[in-house]
């Protein structure tokens, strides 16, 4: 396997983007990624388009996206791994370059979620488990699935609604500093606690918004990094992946995600690092409980102590391990296919010391992206180094 570097990243503005269609949003991210890398379409050998696409009128979204951004003929491969689609797209591009089959590949993650009404969006999301045995009878939703984990975690470890709210407060603090975030305003813990119940015990401010957006990542071999004269390549050190049962009733417990534990274990082993070596992380905080579980399942703290970690402020910049200092899915937004690519965008900027007032201090120049699909149905953990 060859070494593979991220040489360019781009990110559209996230939010309710009723000013643009799918491919127009993808264009914003691709254009920025090309400018960042200092290359053009002619330098790309393969395009990977990640889009969950279940809310789209476009049945084959990869092809119109690829055409619009001027990459027709260079793929595309369409990738889907639920909310981890973006990371799966990067992994697919990584493998193509690492194997030597191509020299330069682009992963484009894009999603339009706000063109359908909320009950439709909720129904599509709620089918992201096992339709026949869950949604069909019980009307599950994504918030409902994570609420089942929140209840069990609170019951087992004494995690509180205040601790969940603190995760939201942190996300909004950094979202307010990120011009690409869906929500760019701070919130108070009182407002979070008083917001309406969505799926008890999760309230409105425990949930990420329904967002539109795109992000793009360009990957190259070491040889091409030299040829393109890339000054600040960010190397992909490891990718760990795993999955879990589609049926929630077949899981051993509801206090953590087995897929995270396995994917993280794989990534740490390949990268030959430990959780304490990570300078900055993006974790999958589609709901506040998901961030608390991620702290534990990634080894940033002991199992059951995720609530304590946020109480102590250890996941803010200046703490033990800054997490989601771009606002996370919670405030930056979670356009499904874009999220994994957007995590790479943020971490590449962080490792290149280009994050401005949101810059986390770098000691070992190692960053970690944790991207979940569904309720732990998929997991990718990607470790980057500069």
């Amino acid at each position, binding site marked *: 396997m060859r070494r593979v570097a991220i040489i360019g990243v781009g990110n559209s503005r996230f939010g309710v983007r009723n000013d643009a269609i799918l491919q127009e949003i993808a264009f914003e991210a691709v254009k920025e990624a090309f400018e960042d890398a200092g290359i053009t379409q002619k330098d790309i050998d393969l395009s990977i388009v990640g889009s969950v696409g279940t809310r789209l009128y476009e049945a084959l979204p990869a092809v119109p996206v690829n055409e619009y951004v001027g990459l027709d003929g260079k793929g595309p491969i369409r990738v889907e791994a639920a909310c981890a689609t973006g990371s799966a797209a990067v992994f697919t591009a990584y493998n193509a370059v690492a194997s030597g089959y191509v020299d330069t590949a682009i992963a484009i993650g894009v999603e339009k979620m706000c063109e359908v009404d909320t*009950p439709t969006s909720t129904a599509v999301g709620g089918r992201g488990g096992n339709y026949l*045995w869950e949604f069909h009878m019980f009307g599950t939703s994504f918030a*409902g699935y994570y609420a089942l*984990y929140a209840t069990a975690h609170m*019951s087992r470890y004494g995690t509180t609604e205040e601790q969940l709210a603190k995760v939201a407060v942190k996300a909004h603090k950094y979202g307010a500093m990120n011009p690409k975030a869906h929500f760019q305003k701070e919130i108070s813990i009182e407002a979070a606690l008083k917001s309406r*119940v969505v799926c*008890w015990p*999760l309230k409105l401010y425990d949930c990420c918004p329904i967002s539109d957006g795109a992000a793009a990542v360009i990957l190259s071999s070491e040889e091409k990094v030299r040829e393109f004269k890339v000054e600040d390549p960010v190397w992909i050190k490891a990718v760990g992946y795993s999955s879990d049962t589609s049926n929630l*009733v077949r899981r051993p417990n*509801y206090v953590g995600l087995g897929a995270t534990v396995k994917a993280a274990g794989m990534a740490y082993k390949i990268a030959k690092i430990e959780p304490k070596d990570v300078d900055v992380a993006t974790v999958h905080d589609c709901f506040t409980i998901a961030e608390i579980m991620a702290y534990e399942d990634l080894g940033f703290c002991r199992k059951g102590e995720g609530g304590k970690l946020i109480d102590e402020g250890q996941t803010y910049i200046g703490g033990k391990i800054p997490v989601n200092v771009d606002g996370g899915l919670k405030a930056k937004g979670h356009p499904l296919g874009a999220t994994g690519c957007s995590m790479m965008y943020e971490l590449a900027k962080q490792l290149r010391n280009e994050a401005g007032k949101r810059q986390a201090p770098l000691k070992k120049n190692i960053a970690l992206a944790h991207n979940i699909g569904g309720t732990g149905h998929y997991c990718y953990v990607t470790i980057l180094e500069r």
Partner: protein
Amino acid sequence: MSIKSRPLSFIHDVPIIKTKMFWDGLKEGRIYATKCRDCGKIYFPPQADCPKCLKSNLEWISLSSEGEIETFTESHLKPQGFTHYEKPYIIAIAKTPEEVKVMGWLEGVEVNNVKVGMKVEITSRIQPDGYPVIIFKPKYMK
């Protein structure tokens, strides 16, 4: 500024030939699982094939009607297909004495009074709209 897309709707005919016993059981308040005659593994939700043995030699077993709540939520969200239900519903997961976990709607109790570990009776019914649902009811100590 926007234009309307052409409408597209799906209603699927889902084959239940291999799991008919389960769907019939829901009409009578019974929950059925399958058990592999070769390795003894119990499958719930029921399935016709055993991936462990790579064989399809399974029998139907009726699950106990007793369960213990492992976790729960009250859904105030109403996805498309559920918008005609008036009230929020409590989705819970209960474990049976066979160590099988079942999802169901917990009824007859306010969410604030539900606790992990609570004992429930597991039954089922057909909703007025024709869709089946597994129901949990609190079992209070006498």
